[in-house]
């Protein structure tokens, strides 16, 4: 399923590199990878590509099989798996490594193993590592795990780890306890904005004016129920999710926070002439609530708006 999530833009971006690199190295494009999986499940030892998406004529079929196993081989022994150099550009990384579930072993430029990881999307994990620790990601071995339930993945990871420890006599440095080099950090969440410092503070300016300032001084402001880290309402949660996935820098205000934002709900409803929450403002203008945001997110209008 992971392969299905791949956006079409990534696919287009990677298909050009696919052709370019396929002269020297082989791997599947995300699209063909999907097909690979379906045929692969039926017959573990052989697979073929539909000719419509094959970029190369048939004479390479023999080679392709062995080369392909570099990248999308079903899980085998670590020592039998060939390592694949990590291309410097992320487009090329996407073309080489499949968005599939499985295990992967990362080697530095001296060929020393740094880390064994397991992932539901190997491609995305590798992209992340390449971005955060490029100096440690020279080449990577990949073992795809079909039907990846939790125990199958863990089992696969264990088998590679055990094989490595037996051969090298030590745990890869990245897998040592306390090493966080390879751990994906959750994006840092900002604090919610507050209208006042506390309940007993007398406002010197009308609440309406504070709202007005808040939405005009910040590019994107979401008035939500609950905090951004723990929205109290499904619609607010969806809005936070959309803003996070757009990757836009936004401020949030908890309209349920009576301590700091007392009276905000009623005043905001009048200010925006909008009776429900969440409410999202961009450049001082009300964009709408959850429905409008969702639909603009789907059509791509939203990202256009954020660029303005």
């Amino acid at each position, binding site marked *: 399923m992971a392969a299905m999530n791949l956006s079409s833009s990534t696919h287009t971006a990677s298909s050009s590199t696919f052709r370019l690199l396929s002269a020297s190295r082989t791997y599947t494009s995300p699209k063909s990878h999907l097909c690979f999986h379906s045929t692969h499940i039926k017959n573990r030892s052989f697979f073929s590509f539909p000719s419509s998406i094959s970029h190369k004529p048939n004479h390479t079929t023999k080679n392709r099989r062995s080369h392909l196993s570099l990248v999308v081989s079903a899980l085998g022994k670590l020592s039998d798996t060939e390592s694949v150099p990590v291309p410097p550009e992320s487009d090329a990384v996407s073309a080489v490594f499949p968005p599939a579930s499985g295990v992967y072993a990362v080697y530095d430029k001296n060929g020393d193993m740094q880390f064994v990881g397991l992932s539901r999307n190997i491609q995305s994990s590798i992209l992340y590592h390449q971005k955060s620790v490029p100096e440690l990601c020279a080449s990577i071995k990949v073992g795809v795990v079909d039907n990846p339930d939790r125990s199958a993945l863990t089992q696969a990871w264990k088998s590679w780890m055990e094989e490595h420890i037996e051969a090298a006599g030590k745990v890869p440095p990245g897998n040592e306890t306390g090493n966080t080099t390879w751990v994906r950090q959750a994006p840092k969440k900002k604090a919610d904005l507050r209208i006042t410092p506390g309940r007993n503070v007398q406002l010197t300016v009308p609440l309406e004016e504070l709202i007005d300032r808040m939405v005009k001084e910040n590019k994107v402001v979401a008035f939500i129920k609950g905090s951004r880290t723990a929205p109290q*309402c499904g619609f607010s949660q969806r809005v936070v999710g959309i803003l996070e996935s757009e990757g836009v820098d936004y401020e949030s205000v908890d309209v*349920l926070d009576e301590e700091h934002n007392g009276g905000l709900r009623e005043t905001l409803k009048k200010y925006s002439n909008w009776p429900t929450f969440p409410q999202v403002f961009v450049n001082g203008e009300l*964009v709408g609530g959850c429905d409008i945001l969702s*639909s603009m997110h789907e059509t791509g209008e939203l990202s256009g708006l954020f660029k303005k």
Partner: protein
Amino acid sequence: MGSRGTNLLLSRASRIKSKLQSVLEAKFLEVEDVSYQHAGHAAVKDNANETHFNVKVVSGKFDGQNLVKRHRMVYDALADELESGLHALSIVAKTPKEAGLN
């Protein structure tokens, strides 16, 4: 049920329906009570009946109006309901052309 006074006569869903129908001259209108999905929700107080609705409406009056304006037209038509416990609406507002009705 008996304590809900005026609601005895008509459910909120049917009031929403008739209000939207008359104000927006809807070509298509669907009102679905989804309050049950939000029972126990932080902001819904004791009276958790008829608080959340899905509304799908197609109206020629939406022509040339952006989404914010269309939603406001729906909200304006239902101002009384919003004052009296209607908590959230999920709105799909289309012009007849967008909905392929023309």
